[in-house]
């Protein structure tokens, strides 16, 4: 068990490319932290620095109150699960798991006990332990990779997109198993993914990375309810949040949604932003159908998707045909060409500075 502390961690690759621009985070003992962001944002780089597979070129990295910047991977008391599993192809499943334990110098009986124990947890049969990795399915290989991490009894688990090579169904199943396992073992875990659903469901806290910069660090609910930037707002949630280019009225009391339609801000408004451009975000699931309300937007339906439990309606409104997606639970009987009156309520909007893209607090 250990905490992991990153203090202004930076990474500049030998070719001069700066991949990580100063990351601070304090991962608590037993916490499950998810690093999430689009491909190429530096997630793997950060994780690999924690593992010791990449050098840290700036800042201080602590694992369990010990600075480990210059420590070898094997001395950091960590275990890592790779995206392609990185199982040793010429060794049996048993030997894959036992490899690290042999190097630790454990006795044969101790090794056997640990491997059998991990196999039990991961539901790998004795027969499967004698196979080579290539004789296993993707899901089973994934389990072996997890097993190899578990048997070492590390202080910290590191995962680099461990589920991205699995098909959708297996991915959901393994996601649940990883969460259960982490909770039962209570080992501090850092998990990298580009999939926001995986991130939201797994993490105690999420760190959203964008081009090597932390956009926001918080619990899944915090990120969903109060995204700190336009980037987070658009990244978290599916379908993505609707973003409208608007401005604050001249008196600062309301935000213009469309020509002649304003939404009163209350609370004294935003006098600092009076007359300024802002971005307004509203989630598809927070849009209301407002039959007969005078403040409603007439949405011209262009596409309807029936998911069964929900209905997604895509359409546009106004002179500049601003796109908008609405999510309603249940079945909504509508067809392309229809006009749906949509209303936006004050408590469901998010405002962002048009220049800095940061959240504007009301």
């Amino acid at each position: 068990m250990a905490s992991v502390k990153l203090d202004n961690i930076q990474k500049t690759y030998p070719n001069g490319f700066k991949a990580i621009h100063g990351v601070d985070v304090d991962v608590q003992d037993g916490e499950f932290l998810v690093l999430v962001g689009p491909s190429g944002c530096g997630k793997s780089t950060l994780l690999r620095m924690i593992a010791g597979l990449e050098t840290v070129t700036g800042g201080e990295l602590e694992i369990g109150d010990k600075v480990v910047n210059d420590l070898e991977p094997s001395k950091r008391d960590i275990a890592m699960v790779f995206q392609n599993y990185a199982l040793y192809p010429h060794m049996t499943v048993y030997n894959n798991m036992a490899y690290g334990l042999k190097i630790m110098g454990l006795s044969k009986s101790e090794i056997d006990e640990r491997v059998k124990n991990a196999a039990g947890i991961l539901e790998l049969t004795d027969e499967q332990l004698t196979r080579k990795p290539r004789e296993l399915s993707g899901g089973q290989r994934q389990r072996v990779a997890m097993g190899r991490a578990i048997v070492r009894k590390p202080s910290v688990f590191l995962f680099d997109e461990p589920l991205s090579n699995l098909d959708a169904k297996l991915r959901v199943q393994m996601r649940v198993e990883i969460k259960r396992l982490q909770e039962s073992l209570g080992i501090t875990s850092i998990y990298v993914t580009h999939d926001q659903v995986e991130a939201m469901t797994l993490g105690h806290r999420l760190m959203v990375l964008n081009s090597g910069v932390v956009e926001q660090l918080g619990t899944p609910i915090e990120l969903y309810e109060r995204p700190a930037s336009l980037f987070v707002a658009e990244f978290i949630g599916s379908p993505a949040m609707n973003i409208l280019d608007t401005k604050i009225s001249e008196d600062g009391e309301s935000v213009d949604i469309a020509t002649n339609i304003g939404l009163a801000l209350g609370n004294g408004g935003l006098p600092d932003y009076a007359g300024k451009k802002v971005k307004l975000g509203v989630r598809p699931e927070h849009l209301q159908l407002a039959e007969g309300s005078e403040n409603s937007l007439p949405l011209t339906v262009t596409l309807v998707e029936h998911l069964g439990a929900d209905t997604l309606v895509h359409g546009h409104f106004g002179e500049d045909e601003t796109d908008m997606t609405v999510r309603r639970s249940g079945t909504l009987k509508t067809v392309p060409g229809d006009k749906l009156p949509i209303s936006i309520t004050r408590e469901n909007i998010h405002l962002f500075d048009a220049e800095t893209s940061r959240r504007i607090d009301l």
Partner: protein
Amino acid sequence: MLKRVHFGPSALPYLLVLPQILVTVIFFIWPASQALYQSLLVEDAFGLSSKFVWFENFEYLFEDPYYWGSFQRTFVFSFLVASLSMGSALLLAVMADRVVKGSGLYRTFLIWPYAVAPAAAGALWFFMFNPTLGILPYVLQFIGYDWNHKVNGTEAMALVIFAASWKQIAYNFLFFLAGLQSIPKSLIEAAAIDGAGPGRRFWTIVFPLLSPTTFFLLVINVVYAFFETFGIVDAITSGGPANSTQILVYKVYNDGFVGLDLGGSAAQSVILMGIVIGLTVIQFRFVEKKVSYND
């Protein structure tokens, strides 16, 4: 099952394989059958008459201690050439695999020896080690070693082994490097996290994963040492001194064209041909069974 596509009868397919068939017949089947036939004949010293003697040439060969000596020499030679050239190539490949900058240049230089003709390579080593002119005997003199491969059979053998290995390193290097680069980096990283140091990682992960390449190269190198080193031996020692570097392929030439024992020489080439066929069969067997580590 794949469905076969049927084309109308046409001469084109036959025309397309014809050049290959011609080359095989003219340069392999014809001379090989000649050798087979010749190996059953005994010719008089002037080449005026010949007599069909069945397997007498072979019987004679197997009773000849010189032939067995050459066989033994060839095994030692092949074993040492294969180990030396593969070992050095592996070492170089491991180092090249780590080089990030300028690796293209490094590789290009390492490949050059392969482009040198065996006789030219032989001449190069001949001059470098020439007891009267060469630079290396001159240098060795300073540490009190008197190098003369023209007199000392062991030195002569060492020299042809060096020269033959040197020429083959480039080829082996290319295959080892490709093999090393096909091993996913994450395997090495996983082993590093598991606590394995560089040496252990090499022997427990890299080397086993290279084994298909190693086996392939072993067969190639043995074939090379057996058959393609004629030019090197000829240029450096001509089989001497006192037959000490007379490997099988050189003995074929020597007995046939110098000693004019055409029947005996042909019998030796038939035996060599049998060895090549044997090695090729092993190679194919192995390729068929070859395990793929990539999935």
